[in-house]
């Protein structure tokens, strides 16, 4: 056996983008393979649960886990992987900060199931998936949904975070060598600066009378999107992506989550936007007029927490309004 590092990849509730992103590093994959041996990768190989169980504790040097924790299976599997790995990397935003699926936390599971299986958009109204199914091969048990979507570190300890939806080649080019050589701290791969820091667009001091839906605004290519009155999450989003979205005129949607050291991306954005929006001439507005300005922020919760709701303060929908 060589003295190569043993690494593994695993996906939880994920879209698959993170898996593909590993391949985005082009030639660098050769460097990786030179230093490491991939011993576990369900997407590309066909390992079984028992194979992992059989491993010694800490046998794998690094396991990259992407996807959020959404099912009992995810839960169980990452606990096992934790046991078998020296180091666990939360790969991508879903495992680092909850990710897009985290928006599911705006609803409880009943509501989600109802929407998924019992609305006009679904094929057969009212047919719900069963936990247990008798099929010719035997009794098939589907893993249940967890109470809410969780980031990886709510279930197991995480050694390094690498958010991104998915992490981009430029991030990986920095991350892989560092990870493989072992010199990387828990939060080192999260930028402490925001997307604005790397955004090439020309920005002004913020004087934004109100926000507009993007489809209602013809955007100037060179100017800061937020300055033009369209929500851009760049200011509150960690900028290790180098800002490819605003560069091509698309607002940042916040996929990297908050910068290093900030817990709650949505709360920060609410604070920033609430402060500057419609500030000019505010002394001449009455409370109704100001409320109109605030309402021009459509769906603040969904927009500000698009990727990070599960790591926010409030994390998931409560039942305070139900009583």
């Amino acid at each position, binding site marked *: 056996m060589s003295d190569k590092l043993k690494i593994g990849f695993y996906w939880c509730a994920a879209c698959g983008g993170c898996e593909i992103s590993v391949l985005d590093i082009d030639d660098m994959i050769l460097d990786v393979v030179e230093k490491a041996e991939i011993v576990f990768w369900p997407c590309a190989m066909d390992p079984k649960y028992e194979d992992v169980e059989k491993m010694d504790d800490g046998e794998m040097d690094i396991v990259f886990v992407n996807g959020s924790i959404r099912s009992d299976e995810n839960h169980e599997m990452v606990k096992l992987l934790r046991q078998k790995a020296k180091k666990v990397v939360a790969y991508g935003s879903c495992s680092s900060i909850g990710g897009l699926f985290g928006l599911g936390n705006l609803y409880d599971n009943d509501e989600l199931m109802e929407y998924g299986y019992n609305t006009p958009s679904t094929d057969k109204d009212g047919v719900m998936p069963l936990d247990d199914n008798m099929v010719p091969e035997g009794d098939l048990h589907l893993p249940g949904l967890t109470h809410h979507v969780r980031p990886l570190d709510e279930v197991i300890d995480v050694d390094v975070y690498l958010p991104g939806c998915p992490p981009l080649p430029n991030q990986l080019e920095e991350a892989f060598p560092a990870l493989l050589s072992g010199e990387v701290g828990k939060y080192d791969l999260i930028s402490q600066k925001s*997307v604005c820091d790397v955004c090439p667009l020309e920005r002004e*001091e913020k004087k934004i009378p109100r926000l507009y839906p993007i489809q209602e605004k013809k955007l100037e290519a060179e100017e800061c999107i937020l300055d033009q009155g369209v929500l851009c999450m*760049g200011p509150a989003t960690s900028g290790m992506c180098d800002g490819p979205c605003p560069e091509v005129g698309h607002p940042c949607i916040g996929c990297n989550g908050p910068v290093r050291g900030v817990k709650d991306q949505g709360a920060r954005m609410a*604070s920033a936007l609430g402060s*500057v929006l419609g500030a000019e001439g505010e002394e001449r507005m009455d409370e109704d007029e100001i409320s109109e300005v605030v309402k021009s922020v459509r769906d603040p919760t969904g927009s500000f927490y698009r990727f990070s709701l599960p790591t926010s303060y409030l994390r998931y929908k409560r039942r305070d309004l139900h009583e």
Partner: protein
Amino acid sequence: MKKDVLIIGGGISGVQSALDLAEKGYEVVLVDRSPSIGGNMVKLDKTFPTNDCSICISAPKMVEASRNDNITILTYSEIKDLIGSAGGFDVKIWKRTKYVDPDICTGCGDCETACPVEVPSEFEQKLSDRKGIYVEFPQSVPLTYTIDYDNCVGCAACERVCDAGAINFLDTSQVIDLEVGSIIVATGYQMMQPDEWREEYGYGKYPDVLNAMEYERLLSASGPTGGKVLKRSDGKPPESVAWIQCVGSRCKQKGMPYCSRVCCMYSTKQASISKGENPDLDTAVYYMDLRAYGKDFQQYYDKAKDKGVRYLRGRPSRVYEQSDGKLAIEYEDTEKGEVKTDVVDMVVLSSAILPSSGNDKLSEILDISLDEYGFFESKDMLTAPVDSTRDGIYLAGCAQSPKDIPDSVSQASGAAARALMPLRDRKRKGRAEKKPERDVSKEEPRIGVFVCHCGKNIANYLDVEEVAEATKNMPGVVHVDDSMFACSEDAQTVIKDAIKEHHLNRIVVSACSPRTHAPLFQDTLEEAGLNRYLFEMSNIRNHCSWVHSDDPEKATEKAKLLTKMAVAKAKRLSALTEEEIDVGDRTLVIGGGPAGMETALSLSRCGQKVTLVEKEAELGGKLRRLNTLFPTDIDAREFADSMAHQVGDEKNIRVILSAEIEDIEGYIGNYTATVNGEEIEVDTIVLATGFKEIEAEERHGYGKDPRVMTQLEFDEALSGGGLGKPENVVFINCVGALEEERPWCCRVGCGNSLKNAKEIKQRYPDANVYILYKDMRVFGKREEEYYMDVEGDDGVIFLRYSTGQEPEVVTGKDKLQLKVHDNLLDEDLEIDADYVVLAMQLEGDESAPILKKMLKISSDPAGFYMEAHAKLRPLELPSEGVYLAGGAHYPKNISDTLAQAEGAASKAMVPMMRGYTKSEGIISVVDDELCSGCKMCISVCPYGAIEHDPEEGVAVITDVLCKGCGSCASVCPIGAIDQKGYENDTIMAMIKAALLEDEVV
């Protein structure tokens, strides 16, 4: 006692003058005959047109005055005698005893509870009672008790309950000898009691006829009814309230001929607040002219109308009580020409502003003149409004004539500038030595906690010992003590000793309010060698024992938590410094009109160096275009010449004409202005850029016929002399004003039309003059009288028109044909005019948009700069170092302009004479390692303290400009800004301490 300046009257004007002088290093004695300073402003509920809470904005000023080492406050005192002359006055002051030692009294109020005597409270306009031992109002300065000798029964109940032992019945009044160089008279006003002159309105006879000050107290949340307007007759809320304007004003026979200048707006304020609180209330204001002349006044008035306040034009002839107890108002609606009777539940009389009652005596003692009404006479009403008739004595605020608050404080600052003249050569107090401080940054927190009993005020309602005991185990706390009065002199020694003995480096006092008491303890820390910011207070009295007095157990628990939260905060405190930056003596005055010239002159005469820049080729500004100056017949150009001449004589003033300002950079003490290619370094900047007429476009035939002119063009024509022999001249007021697009009032147009009307009548006695107006807004000293004089001339015809019924002018004929609907006579009139003169709406100078950007300041929609505070800081901009004079703030007549210009000079001299300015200790800082340059924070700062550094791509806060609000710390989307003293971690720690039981604070 030897001091620099004596200020008589501790109202807002007197306090402002005192602060202006004291901040420059002059020693001031502020005398007031009441037990507290504050004057009339503190009695008001809110102030127009911003609805600021009056006491909330004036109390901090009063406290500031009481804390200033250079100000000695003598309350309950009066001037007895004066000899000497400017530069060397000897004054005798009679200081009455309050029988309470102010150094010992803690203001706890135990005595008040014990006192059996009840008398009507003067402060509350006798609407409620006070005790024989009392403070006038909760925010009194000094906050110590006074025994009302006249009503005291001598039972000594108060003496027995006073734990502090502050009461001394044997104390006596004394005469204080004072030497000063100059004197400012700021005796304010009193409100007319409308019973003698206007008995037909039933004041004093019917309980529900009130004067405006009484109504003000009813509105006040801290007033006798807790802010509820209730009828005196039956204690029920009224369903309708009527305000009657000009009660005792604008009427020679039944009061005073002058306009009281504030009533239209305060009744608008009272009506709209009442209406806002109860939309079903019927509110009506009976007026003659609604004088909404000031900045934002007209908009305020419009808003009141929108809210449903009714305005009825007419002077009621009488008010009487009907058999059902309601009040009937008889009046002639002059808009409809009908005599009517309205019935209401309550009548408020907007009674006249009268000279203060002591003015007669004081004028004799000081040997200065009063005008025929009893206000102090200016040396020259127009050109020297703040000088009294005697050298070395100056006038501030309503002592000279009725004024609103911003005009009063502007003039008060102006008086402060004038009062410097006799003192120019005196030595001023320099910078205070900094006390050496122990560096505690490397020490672990060693917190000392002192829990106060406040006599019985805390100890009676919660268990002080238990609070102290519970605090002992908190991590970081190494010493806990409790004391009877933590603020007493002895207690300070105890604290200082404890700091030494236990090597304490953070102090927590659990007692009363930091708003009143923190500075005292902070001084103690300094004396013990600790930085004053290593201090935290928890308020277990005002916010605990006093408000939970029925539940000692829970109150004790809460006091423990409050103390724990303070400890959590204290642990995280670090030493803060108030940075000082040097400010030299160089000012840039922008604008060479009367405001700019006067500012420059005042500065120069006090030894400051001035660069005065004017965009035209000669000094004078609007004075060059005006013919005469309302309300006098002074020739404007002669006046301009004399001012320009004086400017030329000053060695300290450099004038740059035909100047273009290309750039201004920097901040107070460090400005660089580029003027005509030359870089000029200055320490402060005064904006005196004036105003301009809006484009007349094609209004009323303007541009089609040269005989239709704007007011300024007509003034020019008048001084040119070539008017021919006009038979009919028409003035149209409010052109482009008081309408939706430009709702504001230009403030000077009415007066200008009047003086030109008079000029025409003097030159061409046979000519007819028509003045087409909306409301005749003349309000200043001698203006109403001038108006009455012009109105008395049969050849001057006044016609009232309304917005939407603008007069039409047909041009191209032999004469201009003018059609107007007179809404008083309700008929259409046609006039063949030789000239039609348009009193154009005014707006800010065209330089405003450019200067605004350079100086990072803002202007209102009219283009006038936004002052730091509409009421109390009209001469300053939010960013320190930039000041406002004259029309750049808002159009005003010459007298107001000059007073304000002196005031702006005074303001600019504060940091310049002091030689430095200080930043706040509590400021915000940007971590430039983190800042991503998103520019979110920049526009958020109300003081323009944050700038983007394009090189580093980060935000930078200029320490001296930051006032420490913490907005930016909250706005930064990545948490790159934190506020010292209120760090994010500190606030979080306090939250945790409050909520998590076993959280180790």
